[in-house]
C-alpha cells in the first residue's frame, strides 16, 4: 500500500535545489533573532544549536505559531509573514507539516483520526484511504484504531510524522523529533525519515541539539547561537569545524563523507567504500553494494605521517596535502588535509606538527583505522 502512495508534489515544484522558503528575522526581545536564510527543495537543513539559541523559535515562526516583531517569511513566492506590510497568514492557511518534540497527538482521537484531522483539504471519501496509506508508510499497519495513550513513544512519533505528511506540506518541520525517544527507537526512526525524504520534494528542516542526527540526516547545516548564524554550509564542511565550540564539544569534530558501498569482503569482514577521498575500508556494513551512505571519521582518529609506514595495522592510508593548520586550546592543532575533493580533519598535538614539519601545501599521508569509520546514527 505504501508503494502506491505518492508523496511527490507537482513536477514544477519538484525541481530539487530550487529555493522554496526564504526567512529573515531581526528582533531583540523576548527572544533575540538576527538571521536570514533560505531552504531548498529536496534538501534537509539542520538548525543546530544549544537550547536558547533560537532554533525552535525560527521553526515556529515558519509555521506561524510565533510572530517576531520584525520578520519576513515567504514560501514558493507567496508571502506568509511580513511585518513591513503587516501581512500574516495564520498557521492553518500555511501548508506546513510540523512534528512536535512531544508528539502533540490529539489524545481523544485514534491514530487514524489523528491523521485524518489533517486531511480536510481532500474530499471526504478519500480521507480514510489516504490516512491508512500514510500510516502504512510509517509502518503502523494494524494500529490505526489505537489511541495515543495506547501507543509507545516511537509509535506516537510515527503517527505525528504521518499527520505532518498528511497536510501535503510545502515545507516539513521537525522540532527535535527524536529527543524524547530511546536510542534503539531513534535509530529506526532515522531510517524512516531517510526513506521519506527521498520521496518528498519539499524542503525539510530538522531542529536539533544532537550532532549525530545532523550527521545522519542533514544535507546542510545552519549553526545558531543566540539567534545568529555562526556557521552555515554542507554537513561535511560543518562537521569538520573544530573551531566552533558547540560542534567540537557536542559532536567531537570529524569529517562526514558521502560514500557508496562498493564491495563487501565477507572473508575479511570488511566493507569497501568509494568516497570523494578515495577508497576506504570500513567494518562490515549491513547494506547491499551500491547503497549510498554517510560515514564519519572523527578527527581524533586520524594519524598524520610523512610516508606510508610499514608493519602497522592501519587499513587506510590516504595521500593528500596540508590545507590549513589551526591551533586549538591544549597544545592541540586541527590540521585540514585535502584528500581528493574533500578536507579531512585531523587532530594532532602541536608538538607533532613541529616534528613532522607540517605546513600548508606539504604532502602528507592520513592514516585512518577502519574501525574509526562509522555510519552516524547506526
Amino acid at each position: 500500500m505504501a508503494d502506491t502512495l505518492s508523496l511527490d508534489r507537482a513536477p514544477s515544484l519538484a525541481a530539487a535545489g530550487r529555493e522554496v522558503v526564504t526567512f529573515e528575522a531581526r528582533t531583540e526581545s523576548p527572544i533575540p533573532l538576527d538571521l536570514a536564510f533560505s531552504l531548498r527543495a529536496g534538501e534537509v537543513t539542520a538548525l543546530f544549536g544549544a537550547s536558547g539559541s533560537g532554533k525552535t523559535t525560527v521553526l515556529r515562526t515558519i509555521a506561524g505559531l510565533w510572530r517576531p516583531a520584525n520578520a519576513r517569511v515567504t514560501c514558493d513566492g507567496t508571502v506568509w509573514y511580513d511585518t513591513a506590510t503587516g501581512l500574516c497568514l495564520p498557521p492553518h492557511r500555511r501548508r506546513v507539516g510540523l512534528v512536535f518534540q512531544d508528539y502533540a497527538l490529539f489524545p481523544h482521537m485514534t491514530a487514524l483520526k489523528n491523521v485524518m484531522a489533517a486531511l480536510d483539504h481532500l474530499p471526504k471519501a478519500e480521507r480514510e484511504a489516504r490516512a491508512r496509506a500514510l500510516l502504512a508508510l510509517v509502518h503502523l499497519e494494524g494500529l490505526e484504531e489505537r489511541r495515543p495513550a495506547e501507543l509507545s513513544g516511537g509509535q506516537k512519533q510515527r503517527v505525528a510524522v504521518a499527520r505532518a505528511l498528511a497536510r501535503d506540506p510545502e515545507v516539513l518541520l521537525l522540532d527535535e523529533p527524536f529527543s524524547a525517544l530511546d536510542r534503539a527507537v531513534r535509530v529506526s526512526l532515522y531510517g524512516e525519515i531517510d526513506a521519506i525524504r527521498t520521496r518528498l520534494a519539499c524542503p525539510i528542516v530538522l531542529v536539533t541539539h544532537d550532532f549525530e542526527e545532523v550527521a545522519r540526516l542533514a544535507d546542510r547545516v545552519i549553526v545558531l547561537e543566540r539567534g545568529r548564524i555562526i556557521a552555515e554550509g554542507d554537513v561535511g564542511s560543518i562537521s569538520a569545524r573544530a573551531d566552533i565550540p558547540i560542534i567540537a564539544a557536542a559532536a567531537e569534530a570529524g569529517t562526514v563523507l558521502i560514500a557508496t558501498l562498493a564491495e563487501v569482503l565477507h572473508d575479511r569482514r570488511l566493507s569497501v567504500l568509494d568516497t570523494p577521498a578515495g577508497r576506504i575500508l570500513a567494518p562490515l556494513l549491513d547494506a547491499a553494494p551500491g547503497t549510498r551512505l554517510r560515514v564519519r571519521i572523527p578527527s581524533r582518529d586520524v594519524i598524520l605521517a610523512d610516508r606510508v609506514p610499514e608493519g602497522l595495522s592501519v587499513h587506510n592510508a590516504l595521500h593528500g596535502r596540508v590545507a590549513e593548520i589551526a591551533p586549538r586550546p591544549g597544545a592541540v592543532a586541527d590540521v585540514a588535509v585535502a584528500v581528493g575533493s574533500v578536507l579531512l580533519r585531523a587532530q594532532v598535538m602541536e608538538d607533532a606538527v613541529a616534528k613532522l614539519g607540517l605546513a600548508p601545501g606539504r604532502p602528507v599521508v592520513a592514516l585512518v583505522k577502519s574501525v574509526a569509520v562509522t555510519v552516524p546514527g547506526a
Partner: protein
Amino acid sequence: MDWEALILSIELGIATVFGLAPIAIWAGRALAYREFRGKGFVEALVALPLLLPPTVVGFYLLVAFGRHSPLGQAFEALTGHLLAFSFEGLLVASILINIPFSFQPVQRAFEAIEPSIREAGAVSGLSPWQVFFRIELPLAWPGIVTALVLTFAHTLGEFGVVLMVGGSIPGETKTIAIAIYDRVQAFDDRSANIMALTLLAISIVALGITNTLSRRIGRRRG
C-alpha cells in the same frame, strides 16, 4: 413536600445551567488562554461570590434590580414588571452567584490541554473554530460538565441570595431551599426532612458525576 417549590428550583437550575454554559465556556477559555492586563484582578473578582456572605450579594443585587436603578428601570419599561421579586431576577442572580462554580472548572479544563496540541490542530490545517470544536471542546468536556453539574446543584441549594432578591413568592421565587426554611418555621419537621433528604440525594449524585468525570480527564492524558 412542596412540589411547586421543587419544580421551581429545578426550572431555575436548568435555566441557570443553560444561561451560564456559553458564558462560562467563553470566559473560562479566555482566562485559560489569554493574557491581558488586570487578569489577576478579574480572577479574584470571579471568586468573590465564594467569599461574600450571600446576604451581601443579595442586598446589592436587590438594589441593582430595584425601581431606582437604571437596570431595574430598563427591565420594567421592557416587561412591565419589576426585576426584583421575579423569576427573571432570580435567574440573573443565580447566574451571577454561580460564576465561581462554573468559571473555575472550565478554566482548569482548558488549561489542562497542552498548548502544543492546539498548535498541532492549527498546523494540521484546522481553523481556530475547528480547533475549538474538534479538539478543545471534546478535551475540556468533562470539566465543562462538572462545572454545570456543580452549578445545578448549587442553584438548588442557594438560600440567602434567593431570599433577598426573590422574597418568597410561591410559584415565582419560592425555591425548595426557602420552602425547607418555611416548613421548619411552621414546625412541620416531616416535610422539611423529606425536602432536605431530596436535596441531599441530588447533591450526592452531583458529586458522583463530577468525581467520575474528573477521573476521566485524568485517564485521557497519556
